[in-house]
């Protein structure tokens, strides 16, 4: 019976933690500023990415890998203009890394609301993101600053 009590206590603490977590689970959208992460994104991340030109190169590489990935390229072909997505992503990625750049596109949830994106498809883009870092010779540890900044968008992009 004592073990049952311990399990109940563990379950109760888990539920409490879950309840405390609720407000943080709201949909994530670009807020017009650097993404808040724990721990924070390193202050020289944008510089190490090569500034605007470096980020632009990375986004070009990202879309190169996305458009070659038969799991996800159809979504990008059917919904929207790739050149425009490259321009908007260059803004967004600079902004979340702490650059003084305003993202002019739609919110993440609005832009993806009707697409029925799965987590499997989202992860395919994450894989493309890592491939893109390797393509433009951005070190893995620098790449992870951007991964940290973009990861919370999963909550507004994945709807299935």
């Amino acid at each position: 019976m004592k073990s049952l009590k311990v399990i109940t206590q563990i379950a109760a603490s888990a539920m409490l933690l879950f309840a405390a977590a609720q407000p943080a689970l709201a949909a994530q959208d670009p807020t017009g500023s650097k993404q808040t992460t724990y721990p924070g994104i390193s202050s020289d991340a944008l510089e190490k990415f090569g500034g605007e030109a470096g980020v632009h190169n990375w986004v070009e590489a990202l879309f190169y890998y996305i458009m070659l990935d038969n799991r996800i390229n159809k979504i990008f072909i059917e919904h929207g203009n790739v050149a425009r997505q490259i321009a908007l992503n260059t803004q967004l990625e600079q902004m979340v890394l702490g650059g003084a750049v305003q993202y002019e596109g739609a919110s993440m949830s609005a832009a993806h609301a009707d697409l029925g994106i799965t987590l499997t498809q989202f992860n395919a883009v994450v894989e493309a993101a890592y491939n893109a870092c390797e393509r433009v010779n951005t070190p893995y540890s620098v790449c992870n600053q951007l991964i940290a900044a973009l990861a919370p968008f999963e909550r507004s992009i994945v709807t299935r």
Partner: protein
Amino acid sequence: MKGLIGVNRYLPSCAALLALSAALFSAGAWADLYNDGKVLATGGVSMTDGAGGGGITPWATITGYGTRDGINGDVHYTYVNLPNYALNSIGGAVGLWDRVELSYTNDVLTTGSTFNTVGLLTDTLGLPTGIAPWNTTIKMDVFGAKVRVFGEAIYDSDNLIPQVAVGGFYKINHNRALLKTLQASKSKDWEAYIAATKIFFPINTLVNVTLRYTAANETGLTGFGGPKGNKREIRPEVSLAYLLNKGTAIGVEYQKHGGNLEGQSVDLNGVVVPGDLLGSLTQHESDWYDAFIAFFPSKNLSITMAYAMLGNITLTPNQSGYYISLQASF
């Protein structure tokens, strides 16, 4: 004849399995169920009890590469070579919709020369101690289940809430006579755990903390409970992994062990031998540590190499040695 009877016993379950697979394939359902959509390395590896995690600690991650969109599984083989022991662990696990994990593993521990002094004596006297001189082996079946409760280890980098899972193992140790000799209370027992895992991308680091509620001696390989304690207790375990690149991680682990058999000697068919009578016959158990490197060349294969520092195990001190684990995912 015995072999035939054995085969017959398994036939119904084989037929059921075949029928199930046929149903899955014919409906084309398997294509919809199968999923390998997790990012490389994020399924973790297989720990020695068979669950998804690090080398010795179960994590809150669900094993395999299945996301919430489907199922995925893996098989593993782990070999640990210590001065007095060798552990062979072989098993399989399945992850269901990144929510539930079911696992089975079979641990076979050969004990080298550890029990030879006791074995030779008791063999001469004809005592049933579970010790065969030169060839004492401990076999254990481990059944595991894990449920992911809440939290995102990977995506929620904007909060500190870890991914949390609860799980349990049911372990059946088959060398009951040896466990009796070592004075363990039980040969079968369950353990429960709660695990919290979080990846901190800005510092390329994964942190896992697990609390295991258990009465195990050497994870159950030398049974459960003993003269110094029979009750389950909460023992912490920690894994730290640093991600070197998208397919390589290095790290360290710690696992708290108990002292149920601490300072005890051996019980030879009812006679407890004074610990110093036949040289060193006193048992000790140390906490476990390991340092590892894990390679993920593809989503179908991981290779983990480690140096395990397990300290005192039963009668023998300084049990440190190499660990290698292969995991194939499908």
